[in-house]
Structure formats: C-alpha cells, structure tokens
C-alpha cells in the first residue's frame, strides 16, 4: 500500500509539472502564431495617416498607408490628394528618416500646422501628432494595428 501511495504521488507530481509546461507550451504556440501572422500582415508599414477632420475630400476616418516620402496637396500627383479649398497644389511633404517622421511645408499659401503650431522648416513628428493641411486634419499613427 505504501509503495502504491508513493507511486501515485510520483505520478501526480510529475503530471503536475508536465501539465504546467503543457499550459506554457500552448501559450508559446499562440504567441508564435501571432508573431507569424504579424510578419505576414500586409498592413505592416512605416506609418499611416488617419483623417480626423475634413470638409470634403478625403472623407473623415479614411486611412492612408505612408511611403518613406509622402506628398500632400491638391495636385492629383500627390500621394495623398487633399481636395480642400485652403490647400495648395503642392502643400507639404512627410519623410521618414531612419528614426522618425518629419514634415516640411512646401511653400503653401495657408501653411501647414502640427498640433496647432505652424511648421517652419523641417519639423519632427511623433506618432499621435496631428497635421493640418487646409481644413483637413490628419493624425500620424504607427503602422499595423
């Protein structure tokens, strides 16, 4: 009986440890799947612009994926066409330079604003900042999400 009890104890002890590791392995598998899905994600990109306020085009709530150099303006050749009466044809340009995003005004008539402050020269941007071109406001967000 004593030997049987001992054997049962051993089995339970080892089963407990094995099950703890099984639970962890299941979590690890879920993590791995998540990582793989994220690398396959076509939405993986440098950043994106979300329109937070707009009078006409682009429509509020629309999202633009950003290239390393992204131009904004009324010109149809712009990466993000801002069809706003107060926007210039070539209004502003966003550039990604190694570490972070920068915005530069291209000599527009009404100026470009970051969080309400006018942009003079090359200005660094943080994710979450709001850029205003004409009456359209766009928020810079991290890509993927």
């Amino acid at each position, binding site marked *: 009986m004593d030997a049987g*009890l001992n054997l049962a104890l051993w089995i*339970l002890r080892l*089963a*407990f440890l094995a099950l*703890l590791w099984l639970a962890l392995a299941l979590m690890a598998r879920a993590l791995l799947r998540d990582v793989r899905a994220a690398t396959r994600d076509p939405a993986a990109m440098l950043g994106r612009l979300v329109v937070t306020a707009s009078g006409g085009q682009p429509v509020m709530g629309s999202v633009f994926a950003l290239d390393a150099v992204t131009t904004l303006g009324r010109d149809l050749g712009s990466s993000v066409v801002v069809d706003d009466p107060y926007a210039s044809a070539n209004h502003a340009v966003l550039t990604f330079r190694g570490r972070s995003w920068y915005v530069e005004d291209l000599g527009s008539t009404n100026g470009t604003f970051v969080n309400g402050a006018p942009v003079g020269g090359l200005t660094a941007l943080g994710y979450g900042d709001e850029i205003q071109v004409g009456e359209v406001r766009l928020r810079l967000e991290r890509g*993927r*999400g």
Partner: protein
Amino acid sequence: MTGVDAGRGAPVLPAFPRPRARPRELGLLAGVGVALAVGSLSLGLYRTGRLELADPAGLALYAAGLLVAHLVLVLAGRRVDEILLPAAAFLGGVGLLLMQRLPQDLVVQEVGPWTLGLGGLQLLWLGVALLVATTVAVGLRSDRWLRLYKYTWAAAGLVLLALTFVFGSEVNGSRLTIEIGPVSGQPSELLKVILVVFFAAYLAENRVLLADARVRLLGPISVPPLPYLAPIAAMLALALGIVVIQRDLGAALLFYAVFLGLLFLATGRLIDVILGLLLFAVGFAALAALFPHVQDRIAVWLDPWADPLGSGYQLVQALHAFARGGLVGTGLGAGLPEVAGRLPIPAVHTDFPLAAIGEELGMVGVVAVLAAYLVIVERGLRIAASSRDDFRALLAAGLALVVGLQAAIIAGGNLKLIPLTGITLPFVSYGGSSLLANALVVGILLALSDRGPAPLRPPRPPRLGRLRRRGEASR
C-alpha cells in the same frame, strides 16, 4: 437586443456590443485549470493519503472567478488580447496552491463573519484582482485622462508615498505599509504603475526632442537635451529619495530600471542606457557609503554564511531549499520542514515564494514560473509594437517591463544572484497591494490591446443560382 436591424435599409449600430467568442483564451484557461487541479490532487494525496483535492472549494472558486472574467470579456465583444489573462492566471494559480500549502496561520484576518487563513485571504485578493483587471480592461476606453493628467498622477503618487512615511507603520524596520481602518497596503506597489504612466506620458510628449535634438557631451557621446529631462529626473529623484529613506531598496531599483528601459525605448540610443548605468553605479556607491543598512545587505549577499543564524538566516535557508528541491522537487506538501515548529523561511509567502516553489516543484517548476513572466513580457511588448501612438506604446512596454523586472529582481535576490531586496514576486506572492497593482497592470494592458469591436460581417453574397433564375424570368 443586439445586432443589425436588417428590416430597414441602413444598418443601425448595435446599442449593446455583440458578444465575441474567445476560443484561444478559453482553451488556455482550461489548460491552466487542469494543471492546477492535478497539483491540488498531489497536495491532497500527500496530506491525507486519499486521492482528493487539497482545497476543493478554494480551487473551484478560483476557476469560477477566471470563467466569469472570461465571460465578461466575451460579452464586452472587443478584440482584446487573449493570452495575457491565462498567463496571469497561471502565476496566480501557482501562488494560490502555494498559499494553500503553507501553514494557514501565517496570516489570519477576520473578514466579516469569517476568519480567513493564508489560502482564503489570497483567494479573496485574487478575486478582487480579477474584478479590477476585467473592470479596467472593459471600462478604460480612452487613454486621454491618463495622458493629460500626468503631473497630477505623479503628484498623487508622491503624496501617497509621503503619507506612508509620516503615518505608516513599521514592519521589519522599514515603513512600507499604511493602514486605513482594517485595510493595510503598500503604496510603493501602486506607485510603480503611476510612475510608468507618468514616464510614458512625458517621454511620448518629448520623444522626438529627446531622440533627435542631441547635445554633444564628449566627441561622439551625446546626451538628450538636459532641460527636457529635468521634470522626469526630478520625479525620479523624489521617488528614489523617499523609498531609499524608507529602506525599500527593491522598489528603488525597480523604478530606476523601468526608467532606463523606457528612456531607451523612447530615444533608441544605447548611450543613454550606458550613461544611466554609470550614474547608477555612482549613486549606489554613494548610498552604500552613507547608509549602513545598504552595506549590511551587500555583506549578506557576498557571504550569507558569515552570520547564518542572524542576518544571513533567510538567504541561507532559501539556498538550502533550492538545493533540497533539485530537478523536480520534493512534491507539493513534502518540502519546507519546520524547524522547532516554525517555517525555516519566515517571509516565505511574501519575499521567498520562489524558494518554496524551488523546493517543492524543483528547477522544472521554477523555470516554468519564470517562463510565464516571459509570456507576459512578450505580450506587453507586442501590444506596444502594434499600438497606434507613442504614449500607448511606451505605456504598454513600461507596464510589461515593470512586471518582468520586478520578477527578475526578486528571483535574482532569492537565488543570491544580486543583493536581496524585499519586493514581491508579481501575481504569486501573498498580499493585497501587490496583487491589486499587478491586476491594474494586466487590466491596462488588456485595454491597450483593444482593437475595437469586431467589424460587422459583410453581407452574404447572393446565391448565383437564384440570380440567374430571376434574370431568366424577367427576360
């Protein structure tokens, strides 16, 4: 009650969120539950010689609590992380088993009509922690009030700390606990969450400046513009000053490490971390020269056997416990022999739970617990990587770091890898404030991982067969 009003043209937004199944979370929680049940069986078998659960009611209540938390998240219908809760439940469950196994009279408190021992109290706090975590996860919709009131938060944290200093009661020679009526708590646990919120908000606001407007110090070595670091440095100095005077060295180490980690994440410059570590070395040397209790800690760390019955007692006993445990441990209930009617390690339930795990579950068990912390840290960093702006990213990463670093500091202390400092093992240690603060961390992380309600399913494409038939009929 819910869903799209299909009868009238435009879809009506659901007034009540549509529930969304979380199969992955349910599966992982079930796995954790089964493992804990087997652990409880092994404890029961050792104690009574019969195949029964050690504390069936306690375990059932814990499982029920987890299930309720899961159901609340399902009903909330948001796309929230599904791995964080099971990982925390894993650690909480191992802690609960440990508290049920330890002598119940280590801590006894009367709660209403019941007199609860160690296991019962831990279960109660775990329940409250689950409540806090799910409430925050579901209720924290906007990060605005965390971000905007950062100085208010910082001030509140400091006031809390100062209150402990003035009104706190002394336990083991340091004033860490504050008592309000029957409830006592350790504010430094809560302060770690507040500090991370403040650091994240401040660094996110000034990240671009700190990273790019560098000031040359010496040749290629550059530092962030120091005036912009001043508020955060002042906050850090105040917090460190108070906890050092309170002799809460573990908290001081944790705060500083989290600060360095977040600074590195914000600026991406290794040189900041190196300079920070140099500053730390200087500060630590100064502290050791000024305060005798810091010297004592270091002496005990270097050679606990110099005074094995006095200052080195707990550490020597902990090392013996790890040695007795070996690879797979002695089994739950079979370790920790009592010396003269008391436990070899007096603070086993707060500062040394890892030693108890090491003795009864062995190295395999200790590594499993440490791996669970890795899972939580990975989740936090992943949430940070996919969050939409700097504040949310820094907040998620900082919260993950706080849990991971705290586990690393106390585990290293228990194993005599670094000087021992009295902080808790997150989710495992006994104690309300520790569990609540870590529940807050999990809750905020869950809220940050929120990707909104599930998008409505696109309308089913019309069946081709029917279309063709209609076309033929109209012709």
